């Protein structure tokens, strides 16, 4: 048997409970077949809802929540694991097939030391003695580039960083020396610089141990770096399946081509960047008497333009948004609106000052009240700021819905009945309803699939053109900056390390941090990872 894993005509369903309707059976995955040879890597790619995680978990005979595998075969070394009993399945899991979750921070048990969790399944299956398992774990920590491998495992999950946890989870999967590992978006939750390290560590570990892998991601540029074969999925069906080189260099289907070219175009920046609708002047701020999270930040946002704030998590970019909105009064420094200083605390700003600066959040899911309809959500600022009621309010809400390309059919829907992109559009309409001069966008597209995110960005660009609103756009995605911004500020550890016109800020000569940040953005071509790693002298910096 040449193939390690053969999936034949896989069919997966679930019971869906749409609000206000009787539960019904839905098909999540249909007619998916693929083969995976020993030591090879298959990339599964698609938007959310494409069924890629569901397929990955099916190779461990697992269905999340109410998900059930309703047909097909998953042959591991010729044995259909879907026909095995619970005990036999458990014997496979954690021994021959292992799983690496998207968020290792949530997937590790907070109550136990890392080493105990890493070697747990290996010991229970009786694959190694405790000493041998510990020695293997330490060896894997070393391969994966974790600091101080001998004692790393003695720490608890909360004592190490997210990127380190993701590598520890990879070590946990590799420990029993499995034939197959399923990586479920292992780098999606990480910063771009961390992602590069983890990606390199995973690729290196796969090569050294010779395990086969299924690598699930929505980022084609990432999967291009690790996969031998790529399967593109949409709505639970295979769009295209073939060798990585063919999918990347010569995609056969329109959908794949759209994914490959989702590397956005560059937009020319505004020529005149004088004047400022918003000015941040020497702001330092911190939480609860702790050390300052922001240190002497000064920025300028010209009217009708977009200033992108770029940085990793912990760089202080969301804190800056809190200072501007007045949720966090700064320790020192001022925020000026059209040249006049704003009161530091939102409680001291008047209604008109509040109205002129609105926010859009990363998670539209949590930013919209689940018990209010779209009409109420968008209508609230209309009533609050402009005193609109009744028919006038409905007319204005409808107008706003049309502006965000949704229409009046959505008036009485609840957020649960909207897709991720639609929710974000409603959040945008709610911000627009206040007729603001500035909208602070806090990573509004980073939780969305690439094609949906593109639609949101197009909408924001159109609104900027039509209403003259200015954006302060927080992101960690340099692709968005190129496509969308006029000026850029790059933040690192609470300080602005580089700021200015987009063309100047993103062109050499670079400071050390900006150079590193730019080098970490995955490019959609094979071999990018190797080139980048070869260029870096010090991989742990």
């Amino acid at each position, binding site marked *: 048997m040449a193939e390690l894993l053969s999936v034949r005509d896989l069919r997966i369903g679930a019971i869906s409970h749409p609000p206000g309707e009787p539960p019904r059976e839905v098909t999540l995955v249909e007619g998916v077949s693929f083969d995976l040879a020993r030591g090879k890597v298959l990339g599964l790619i698609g938007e959310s809802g494409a069924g890629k995680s569901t397929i990955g978990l099916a190779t461990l005979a697992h269905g999340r929540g109410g998900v059930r595998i309703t047909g097909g075969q998953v042959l591991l070394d010729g044995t259909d694991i879907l026909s095995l009993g619970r005990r036999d399945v458990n014997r496979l899991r954690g021994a021959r097939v292992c*799983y690496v979750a998207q968020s290792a921070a949530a*997937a590790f048990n*907070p109550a136990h030391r890392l080493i105990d969790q890493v070697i747990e399944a290996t010991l229970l299956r009786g694959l190694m003695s405790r000493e041998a398992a510990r020695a293997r774990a330490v060896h894997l920590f070393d391969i994966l580039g974790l600091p101080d491998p001998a004692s790393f495992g003695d720490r608890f999950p909360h004592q190490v960083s997210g990127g380190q946890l993701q590598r520890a989870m990879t070590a946990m999967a590799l420990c029993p020396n499995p034939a197959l590992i399923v990586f479920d978006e292992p780098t999606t939750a990480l910063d771009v610089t961390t992602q590069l390290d983890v990606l390199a560590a995973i690729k290196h570990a796969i090569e050294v141990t010779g395990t086969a892998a299924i690598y699930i991601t929505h980022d084609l540029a990432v999967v291009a770096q690790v996969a031998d074969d790529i399967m593109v999925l949409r709505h639970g069906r295979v769009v295209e399946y073939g060798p990585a080189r063919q999918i990347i260099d010569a995609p056969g289907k329109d959908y794949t081509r759209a994914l490959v070219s989702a590397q956005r175009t560059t937009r020319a920046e505004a020529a005149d960047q004088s004047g400022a609708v918003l000015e941040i002047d020497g702001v330092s701020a911190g939480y609860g008497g702790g050390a300052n999270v922001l240190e002497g930040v000064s920025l300028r946002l010209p009217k009708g333009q977009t200033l992108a704030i770029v940085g990793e998590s912990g760089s202080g970019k969301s804190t800056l948004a809190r200072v501007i909105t007045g949720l966090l009064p700064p320790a020192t420094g001022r925020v000026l609106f059209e040249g006049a200083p704003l009161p530091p605390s939102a409680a001291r700003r008047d209604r008109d000052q509040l109205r002129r600066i609105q926010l859009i959040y990363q998670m539209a899911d949590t930013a919209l009240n689940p018990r209010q309809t779209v009409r109420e959500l968008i209508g609230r600022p209309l009533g609050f700021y402009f005193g609109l009621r009744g028919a006038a309010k409905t007319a204005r809400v409808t107008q706003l819905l049309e502006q965000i390309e949704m229409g009046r059919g959505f008036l009485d829907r609840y957020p649960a009945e909207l897709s991720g992109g639609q929710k974000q559009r409603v959040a945008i309409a709610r911000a627009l309803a206040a007729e603001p001069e500035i909208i602070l966008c806090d990573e509004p597209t980073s939780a969305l699939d690439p094609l949906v995110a593109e639609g949101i960005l197009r909408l924001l660009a159109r609104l900027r053109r039509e209403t003259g609103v200015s954006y302060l756009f927080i992101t960690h995605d340099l692709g968005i900056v190129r496509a969308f911004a006029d000026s850029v500020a790059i933040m690192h550890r609470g300080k602005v390390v580089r700021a200015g016109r987009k063309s100047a800020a993103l062109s050499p000569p670079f400071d050390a941090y900006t150079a590193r940040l730019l080098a970490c953005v995955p490019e959609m071509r094979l071999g990018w990872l190797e080139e980048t790693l070869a260029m870096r002298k010090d991989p742990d910096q």
Partner: protein
Amino acid sequence: MPSQTAGVRRGDRHPLARLVVRRLALSIALLFAVSILIFGGLEAMPGDFATTYLGQSATPAAVANLRAQLGLDQPAATRYLDWMAGALRGDFGTSWASRGPVSEQIGQRLSNSLFLAGVAAAISVPLAILLGVVSVRFRDRAPDRIINLASLAAISLPEFFVGYLLILFFAIRLNLATFPATVHEGMGLLERLRVVALPVTGLVFVVLAHMMRMTRAALISVMSSPYVETAELKGLSALRIILRHAAPNAVAPIVNVIALNLAYLVVGVVVIEVVFVYPGMGQYMVDAVTVRDMPVVQACGLIFAAIYIFLNMLADIIAIVANPRLRHPR
């Protein structure tokens, strides 16, 4: 998670010790506050021991005389300070009704109460946790449904009703158990255990369901965590997942509800004591209230409060210690 580490300062090397010490200090302050409430509350109560004791027809001179004798003519603040000074030395004064030292009488009653509560706790706590684990292991299947139904039935019946049912069946019909459950000095341990069998059974019925259902709920809420899915995908058995991966993260809510029920076992058992004629603290306090025997009522109140505060403090400290973020700071 900010909520879990609330109150932990940056760079604090021993957040655990600091939190525990703070919790201890809080408990002591609380106990003093409660002592003032007890004293003030009784002070504000209508009625007066001297008139109750001497009867309606007593002369004003006799009443004044008795009041002076009991120290009731002193200002309240003085009496409170005297009382507290005594209480700190373990001296709760003299009972107005029996003229005997309160501490001595309470000592016997308290040890009876603690014995009854201790036996009930020793049975109900492990049993509740065991049943909780079993019902999670067989969630939504027959064992889970039976345990839930039975515990719901047990919690719905008033405790006096459970008590009389037990007496009717086990003491009268089957003649298996002793009634009344009166213990006295000089009884051997086995004899005592046999005598308290029925009231202990009644108490177990009352507290079991609450603790079991909380254990079940706490475990189930942890069972939906991603790390439990990780454990499933590592091929661990259901029981190992519950015990090793869910239980350590469900300690805080379980311990809290156990503490509440243990406190109830000591201070809330008046009904069971009366039904089974058991000489515990509850009955003693009720008797003292009827005759307005203030030193006894105050002492009982203070001891009950101390037990409540102590058990809740213990639960909080266990919950703090069970949090790995506090036990092992970064």
